């Protein structure tokens, strides 16, 4: 398998009146062709910012990509001009967003929004694009697509709108789809349908997917590999089964423990992680998770551990083995 996207040392920060926000602190990861990678972590840990950095969707200023490379199909995304990026966005790398209620333009018909990228990227004529728009809506399971395509976004329900968003993002058959918490704003049954839809389309188009979420339940169902982020760092990366079986970082352990489970007794309380995520305004020194970590040692507060191999295709950034509590 070849690597579709190889990100190295990505560092993004924001210049705000309060100071510099260190949103992404040198992350490296790769995505293979046709693979699904889940990025998990709590709110504000830099999941969305790192993905939006890749597509040049970070407003600059206040944002700034300090360093890093993102080689996509042999070209560094950060070296592309705005024009070249426009050609890449939507055509080769598509993105869907969290809230389908706000990510469609309320004054344009769904058709108008669907045909846009077809005409821009694939040079379709208006008629071709209109026919294709109906096909796309049918593909994502919108009934009566021929009539619904002329409707405005407010005439669709939340789940239907997310389907429209998916249809839009897949219109040019991109090789990478970045899904930024696409199910968070939807209720559970609709979530399941959307997950299933994306899986189905991924398999038929052989699209690689980066699925940003904080729902570890969804991750287990869809992902091949999982990247766990904390405070702008990648703290663990593993195949999905390895991650659930033997988490290599105390943060992952706590996350899994905080997951509600049907097989747990009812009188057991859900475990939460004590403390709060670190203030991103302070330049991180030592392990960012140390203040909340039950295994924290003096060493953790001094020096941030690098990602190290803890198993086959399994890396974690921790001085301690959370299974034994001993130093690695």
């Amino acid at each position, binding site marked *: 398998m070849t690597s579709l996207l190889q990100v190295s040392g990505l560092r993004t920060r924001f210049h705000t009146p309060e100071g510099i926000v260190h949103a992404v602190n040198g992350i490296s990861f790769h995505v293979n062709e046709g693979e699904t990678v889940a990025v998990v972590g709590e709110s504000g840990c830099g999941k969305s910012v790192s993905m939006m950095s890749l597509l040049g969707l970070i407003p600059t200023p206040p944002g700034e990509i300090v360093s890093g490379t993102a080689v996509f199909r042999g070209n560094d995304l950060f070296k592309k001009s705005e024009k070249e990026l*426009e050609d890449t*966005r939507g055509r080769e790398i598509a993105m869907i967003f969290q809230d389908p209620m706000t990510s469609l*333009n309320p004054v344009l018909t769904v058709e108008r929004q669907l045909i846009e990228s077809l005409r821009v990227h694939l040079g379709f004529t208006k008629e071709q694009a209109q026919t294709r728009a109906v096909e796309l809506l049918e593909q994502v399971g919108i009934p009566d697509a021929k009539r619904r395509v002329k409707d405005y976004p407010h005439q669709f329900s939340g789940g239907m709108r997310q389907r429209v968003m998916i249809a839009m993002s897949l219109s040019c058959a991109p090789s990478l789809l970045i899904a930024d918490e696409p199910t968070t704003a939807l209720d559970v049954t609709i979530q399941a349908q959307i997950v299933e839809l994306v899986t189905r389309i991924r398999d038929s188009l052989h699209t690689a997917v980066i699925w940003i979420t904080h729902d570890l339940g969804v991750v287990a169902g869809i992902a091949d590999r999982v990247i766990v982020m904390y405070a702008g760092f990648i703290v663990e990366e593993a195949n999905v089964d390895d991650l659930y079986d033997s988490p290599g970082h105390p943060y992952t352990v706590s996350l899994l423990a905080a997951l509600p489970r049907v097989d747990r007794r009812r009188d057991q309380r859900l475990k939460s992680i004590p403390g709060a995520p670190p203030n991103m305004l302070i330049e991180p020194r030592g392990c960012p998770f140390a203040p909340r970590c039950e295994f924290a040692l003096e060493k953790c507060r001094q020096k941030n551990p690098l990602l190290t191999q803890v198993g086959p295709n399994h890396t974690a950034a921790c001085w301690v083995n959370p299974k034994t509590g001993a130093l690695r």
Partner: protein
Amino acid sequence: MTAQTTSITQLSADDLTAPPLSLWQLAWLRFRRHKLAVFGCVTLVLLLLYSFGGAFVRTEAYANFNDTSRRLEPPSSEHLFGTDSIGRDILARTIYGGQISLFIGFVAVFIETILGILVGALAGYYGGKLDAFLMRIAEALLSIPTILLLLVMAKFFGGKIPEIHIAGRTFSGSVIVIIAIIGATSWMYLARIVRAEFLSLKENEFILAARATGTSNFQIIFYHILPNTFAPIIVSSTLSVANAILAEAYISFLGLGVQPPTATWGNMLESSAKYLDSAPWLWFFPGMLILLTVLSINFIGDGMRDALDPRSRAI
């Protein structure tokens, strides 16, 4: 009203799924309930008919024909609105003057709207230095009293543009000058409105989504954000038509506007200034026409404001 006896159980699914109303249908429903706005619409249509349809009844040559033996005649069956100080028929002159006044009003606002949208959209969307630069220009222009600006520009550019011939008719070059200066001195308010709309709209997630599908900035500005700002733009532009017509009347009244023999309602008022007491018909008819036009446009603008306001949910 006859009683509808169909019970709800007899209705088919199709009867219950009436097509939802579009924004414009809703706006039209609300607009119709605004009595004064409907009155304004009717009046404005009548005024347009009067000015442009009247051309079929009276020729322009007739409007400019002066019979010095019949100066300052009061309204009569031959000259319904009377004659002016050099014996021209006032009825015919109000018809042709109306054409120019309304033409100036609409074209000046067209220019104003284009300028206002361009400046506001660029400033609001790109922000930063461009925004600061454009808004300082707008503020500088706003800080000069409009009427002074109009007069100075009218004086400066007046007489520099030769006569123009369109559709077999001759217009004084001053018509173009007046349109240009009204347009160039009134775009600032609209630019501010558009800028404010853009500032808030560009932060929406659907703009991010549009960017993520590779839409260019040009497309985002004009196809994604601009349609969201149509309501305030339409309201503001409608009200501006009234202001433009009034502005033309001011300048012409002060003798710097459209030059005779081309008639406008404004320069007809000017020529009546000496006969305020002795020949009131000289100012009454063009004055009334200006009043009616401005009033009806303002009513329409008010009605549109209510109809297009997203916060007004009443149907």
